[in-house]
């Protein structure tokens, strides 16, 4: 409850991983000037090395409770959990990038700088404990992603995606910022700790506060692409270069959910009866729209975009009970989603390295006979996204459902179960299409070594965590025990 007034609480150790990532971005920026154009793969190597250093710096944060910079960021287990997750995603993205970028003639150093910038923003968002740092994190990651979405400078779809994302994202940021202003007005503080303290008193019934929370929720729901704030998702996912979609579909969602957890679970538990209903409604909306519209999609990137909306709904369900158990399930789900959805998009990336028209489902006909490896790992990811054991996706759903049963939240649970059954249709459809007899020979491109290694590792992780979920569950459980 005490705000560190002696100095500003400057503690660079608490944000060391973020600093390393930003530092790596600066190094890459300068290296880009001296590395010859045909050696830009080196930049990916430097990026990975920097990220590995940041990963190493994240582990000491585990188990700490280290508020810094005037209570605006915190180095705790939750931050460490997300640091590891986000850095891992970024490393894998960097590993599959060079081949894809070269194939599309997009091999520029700025790509890695923007990737690192977005990662730093996401990590900051996961560690943020003040409205200002939350905003800072969101903006940092968003601006980088706007540019990355439009990175295919000559492709019209990519430009359209970037513009759409920028305009709608700016609009959502407006909501977010206005909400923050109202919350500040109601509670007199921007740090979550002070806001939490204020809401336990008379301010709890303050209309300003409630409207503020509502607007803040809109901004965050936009970032996790929860319905009805999801309109941008299919277009941006489809138009952006696939490797960028791969990254942002999992990383952005993860980081934004870290903030949602800190805000709803840790800051506003005392008024959970107020936010429960709107949040439940958003979750149910996401489940309905994501799963039902995904059925009609013939483009695999759009299908995965709607599936991502649906999964945002499942993840939100874990927030609803407002319990540590529920938040544990949420964290596990985020990690599981990161693994399986990254895998699914990475397969699209590997196929797309030959050209960008390959996301159409008709191209995937008979993939089992043409490219058995890619088809097999894709099958694993589809089964996992559908939640069929023994894959990690099953336990993700199981833990969320269990937290709802324990909290006796029935209506959203019933919707989630029914929608899960619906989701089988479109996930299994991909498998059926891949199993169908191919129409004829289609020009092939080989999968590079690093891409196939990444795909293999992610597929193994999907199954391994589906057999032994306990380790990650324990981590999630430890990270979920937030307290202010």
């Amino acid at each position, binding site marked *: 409850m005490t705000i560190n007034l002696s100095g500003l609480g400057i503690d660079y150790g608490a944000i060391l991983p973020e600093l390393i990532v930003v530092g790596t971005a600066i190094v890459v920026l300068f290296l880009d000037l001296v590395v010859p154009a045909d050696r830009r793969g080196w930049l990916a190597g430097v990026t990975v090395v920097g990220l590995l250093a940041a990963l190493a710096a994240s582990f000491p944060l585990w188990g700490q409770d280290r508020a810094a910079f005037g209570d605006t960021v915190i180095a705790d287990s939750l931050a460490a959990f997300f640091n590891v997750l986000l850095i891992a995603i970024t490393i894998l993205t960097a590993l599959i990038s060079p081949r894809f970028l070269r194939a599309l003639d997009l091999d520029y150093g700025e790509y890695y700088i923007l990737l690192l910038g977005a990662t730093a923003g996401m990590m900051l968002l996961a560690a943020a404990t003040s409205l200002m740092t939350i905003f800072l994190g969101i903006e940092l990651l968003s601006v980088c992603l706007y540019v990355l979405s439009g990175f295919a400078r000559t492709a019209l779809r990519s430009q359209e995606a970037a513009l759409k994302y920028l305009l709608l994202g700016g609009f959502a940021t407006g909501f977010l910022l206005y909400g923050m202003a109202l919350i500040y007005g109601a509670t007199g503080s921007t740090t979550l700790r002070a806001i939490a303290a204020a809401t336990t008193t008379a301010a709890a019934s303050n209309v300003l506060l409630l409207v503020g929370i509502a607007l803040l929720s809109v901004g965050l729901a936009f970032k996790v692409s929860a319905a009805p704030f999801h309109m941008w998702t299919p277009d941006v996912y489809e138009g952006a270069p696939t490797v960028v979609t791969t990254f942002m579909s999992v990383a952005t969602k993860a980081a934004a959910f870290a903030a949602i957890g800190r805000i709803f679970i840790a800051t506003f538990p005392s008024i959970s009866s107020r936010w429960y209903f709107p949040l439940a409604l958003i979750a149910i909306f996401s489940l309905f729209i994501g799963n039902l519209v995904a059925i009609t999609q013939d483009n695999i990137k759009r299908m995965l975009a709607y599936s991502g909306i649906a999964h945002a709904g499942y993840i939100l369900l874990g927030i609803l009970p407002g319990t540590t158990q529920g938040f544990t399930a949420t964290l596990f789900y985020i990690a599981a989603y990161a693994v399986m959805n990254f895998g699914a998009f990475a397969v699209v990336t590997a196929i797309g390295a030959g050209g960008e028209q390959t996301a159409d489902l008709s191209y995937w006909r008979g993939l089992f006979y043409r490219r058995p490896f890619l088809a097999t790992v894709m099958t694993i990811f589809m089964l996992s996204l559908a939640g*069929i054991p023994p894959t990690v996706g099953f336990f993700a759903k199981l833990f969320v459902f*269990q937290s709802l049963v324990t909290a006796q939240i029935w209506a959203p*649970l019933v919707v989630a179960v029914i929608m899960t*059954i619906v989701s089988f249709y479109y996930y*299994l459809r991909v498998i*059926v299409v891949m199993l169908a007899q191919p129409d004829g020979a289609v020009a092939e491109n080989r999968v590079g070594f690093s891409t196939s290694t990444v795909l293999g590792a992610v597929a193994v992780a999907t199954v391994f965590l589906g057999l032994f979920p*306990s380790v990650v569950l324990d981590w999630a459980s430890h990270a979920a025990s937030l307290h202010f």
Partner: protein
Amino acid sequence: MSWYTLPTNVPWLSLVLVVPLVGALLVVLTPSVAGRVIKQLGILTAVITLALVLAIIGGFQQGVGGLHLQFEEVLRWIPSLGISYHLGIDGLSLFLLGLNALLFLIAIIVTDSATPRLKEFILLLLILEAATAGILLALDLILFYVFWEAMLVPLYFLIGVWGEGRRIYAAFKFLIYTVIGSFAMLIAILAVAGINFSQTGQLSFDWTVLVQHPAAGVWHLPGSLGSVGIPQLLFVGFALAFAIKMPIWPLHTWLPPAYTASPVPVVIVFAGLVSKLGAYGFIRFNLSLFPDAAHSLGGPLAVLATIGILYGAVMALAQTDLKRLVAYASMSHLGFIGLGIFAGNLLGIEGALVQMINHGVIIAALFLVVGMIERRAGTRLRGELRGLGATAPLFAALFLVVSLAALGLPGLNGFVGEFLIMLGAWSSFLPLAVGAGIGVVLAAWYVLRFYQGSTQDAPPHPASFPELRILDVGVLAPLLALMVVIGISPGFFPAAVDATVKALPVILR
């Protein structure tokens, strides 16, 4: 049984799961051009598994252990949620495990070496064998659910890729039905554990723990809609999954297309084994976890089972396609098993367990016969077949034994189970026993018409139906032997089953 004692430091049951998976791995590593090697690998794996299972059956000691469970293995899996890797075997699962190993061996042997993508076919069969064995062995509800769902994926592919006719439609319909039931069961599983947690303070998904504290309580519906007993609600959750799998009328509509579309090796394990897993689930979970609800809901379910007997029999009479005929016959026979279970007395449940084995043996043999007819005659339409016995007397003889077993002739195995079930039903629900009796009469009708119509009468000219080969006799032989052995010494099975059923907290009528 218990002819010898197996060493206790070997995880026998895990081996039953691991051996097919190791075989599957070896199949993966074999290049797909080596079709013969792949099939031989599959047969070898299935033989080893069968040998293991036979060793376990031989070493099974009757009436030992708390719930008469043996070869138990408990490993920590997800300790924070009370989920464990708990395997065990008792009188309920012992012989079904044997049936599982036998039918998969037969299925792999009868797989045509010319099957396209043989490698994936054998691979999926081996994975399916591990999953179905896991269903029989799992004693943790979540572990059970994992196997239950894992079974779905290989089956879906086996029908959807290698099936015939409207295979994708059939596979999809089967999948959707099953998944709906599965999720109802999943929610019930979570609720059972949650209720047990609130009653005892111990979070556990272990069947041996849950079975000691049957769920109780009443759920008051919102408004003034009355109230529902929570055990009844949970019972229905489990029952939905198992009733769809069996299937119990009116949840059977996925069955005819799925059985008809399945290739012969798949339909042998599908009809012979997978349908029994639903019946097994009823006894293992519904009867023992919710004894009160099983008592109060047993009556309506027994009525549905009897309707299934008659409906299946009448539909079997109406079929011209032999595969569909056997599919409906299978459904009719499963109605008997359901009736035995829901009769809720010792005779009925014993009869159901015996009949599960019998049905597996008989239906597998019938589908094999249909497969042989189709491969030789090029058709399986009843009207186009006649006089097969003239050129293939051995075939006709073996077919006759199978037919007589299927219609329940005393001295063969079908009679034993049906008789026990009828006795059980007689003392619980007299009118239903009469209905089931009519089903037996109808069975004689459609089976004999099938047999006589196809084998007797003068053969068409030129008679071209070839006699059985050694291999065909070889795959039918163990099934025929079982029919005779069970038929002559029926006391063999109930002894092991009896002790287990008595140890369960089942309310007997």
